[in-house]
Every structure is written in C-alpha cells, then in structure tokens.
C-alpha cells in the first residue's frame, strides 16, 4: 500500500476541515461498500489523528496545513495523516491538551499504527485498519 493514494487531501489545519475529511471517507465507503460500523470506527480514528494536527501541530494563531491520504486495498484501509509543524512533542503544560485519549483510541481501532518525524518537518501518522466482512460482524 505504498503506491499512489486513492484519495489525497491537503486542507487548512482547522476544526472545520475534519468535516471535509469525514465526508471524503464516507464517499470512499459508499463505493467500497464498507459496513457502517467500520466506517464509524474509521471516522473516529482518522478524526482523532486530524484533531491532533489541528490542536497540537502549530502554534496558536498560526495557520498550518493538514494532509490526509487514504488508500483502500482489499480488506484493509491505509491512512496517512501528517502535518508540517512542530510534530508531537512532550509538553509539561499545554492548556490546549485534551484528555489524552486520542492516540490510545487510534491504537485500539487500527491494526497497525506508526509515527514518524518527516524529513521536511512535521509528524506523519500511518494507520492500517482491517475492514471486516459483513459475516464477521
């Protein structure tokens, strides 16, 4: 799943962009015929990764970009979410911090998750989600 992504989005790192990402995912699900429960899980995992970019990747009052690539392949969906900002760093005090459930949630929903610092700056989250068959549900 390292080839050209099926859907490649570059958006402003703003909360309203999450709606656009979720709609794009719904479009893929409609054509691929994914079970609704899988679509719901995928939306949660991808939204969490995108939210991390919106909230943590760029300093406050700074406009940044959010990049999302989706590649369905057989019974798996590979999603890459990346930013071009400071990346994920430990913070002693961050008043924008949430409950800290985002990354564990992604890890629970995805079959594989990896994080890497991109050479050009920013952080890339790569997740692979297993698409269940209707019979398996």
């Amino acid at each position: 799943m390292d080839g050209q992504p099926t859907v490649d989005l570059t958006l402003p790192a703003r909360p309203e962009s999450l709606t656009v990402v979720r709609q794009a995912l719904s479009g893929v699900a409609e054509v691929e015929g994914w079970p609704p429960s899988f679509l719901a899980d995928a939306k949660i995992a991808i939204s969490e990764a995108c939210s991390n970019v919106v909230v943590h990747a760029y300093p406050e009052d700074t406009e940044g970009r959010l990049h999302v690539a989706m590649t369905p392949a057989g019974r798996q969906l590979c999603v890459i979410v990346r930013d071009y900002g400071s990346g994920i760093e430990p913070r002693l005090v961050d008043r924008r911090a949430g409950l800290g459930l985002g990354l564990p949630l992604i890890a629970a929903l995805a079959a594989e998750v990896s994080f890497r610092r991109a050479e050009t700056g920013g952080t890339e989250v790569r997740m692979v989600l297993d698409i269940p068959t209707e019979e398996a549900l």
Partner: protein
Amino acid sequence: VKGFGRIDVEVTAGPIADAVIRRVVAASAAQSRLPIDRINDAVLAADALLGALATSFVSVTLVPLDEGIEVSIGPTSDREAQQILDEMHPGGPGAVVRGLSERVWLGGDPDGRHCITFRVGRDDTN
C-alpha cells in the same frame, strides 16, 4: 491561489472520484455561507465537469470565499477544456457549468496542467 482556506484533493478517476468530490464540494460549499440551492449548484457543476474529463486521476482545488466558492477541476489540456466548455447542448457540461455558476474560466499551472475553474456565489475578496 487565494486564501489559506484552500483545499486540494487528488482522487483516482472513477466511481470513488465521483462520490468523494461530490461530498467534498458540498462540505466545503456549506462552510462558505451559501444557501442550500447554491451548494447543490456547485455539486452539480462539479459533477458535470468530472463526467467530461478523460484522465486517470482528478485534481480539484476548492477555495471557500466569504459568500461563495471557487472550484477548479483538472487536469486537462487547454484544448480539451475549451471543448468541454463548448458543449452547450442541454445537459452538456458547458451548458451546466455556465448555467449554474457566476463565472467560468480556464487556468493553468507551471507544469502545463490546465483546469476549469468556476465560481458559485459572490467573491467579495477582490
């Protein structure tokens, strides 16, 4: 390119492109304070152009305006783009896009890729 709110989408051509672009255009247009009928205009115009393009992937750029949206769809050659816009028979892509948008024009990038851009709604940024 106007505004930081720009959204760039590249999708493999085919049914997924149709489904994804339709939804992305609608979601972006909804953020531009357009009334529902004008959101539908933007979706229908994008649909008409998508159906006329003969490419292996589709590239779409959306620029939300204060009360409108600009949608650029490509890639295409300058000649093909003009042919698409010249299809003015009822239901033809040229007729649909010109009928549903305030403005249509051809654009290009430094790589020689061309696109068709249309605006639905107002542009108060100029």
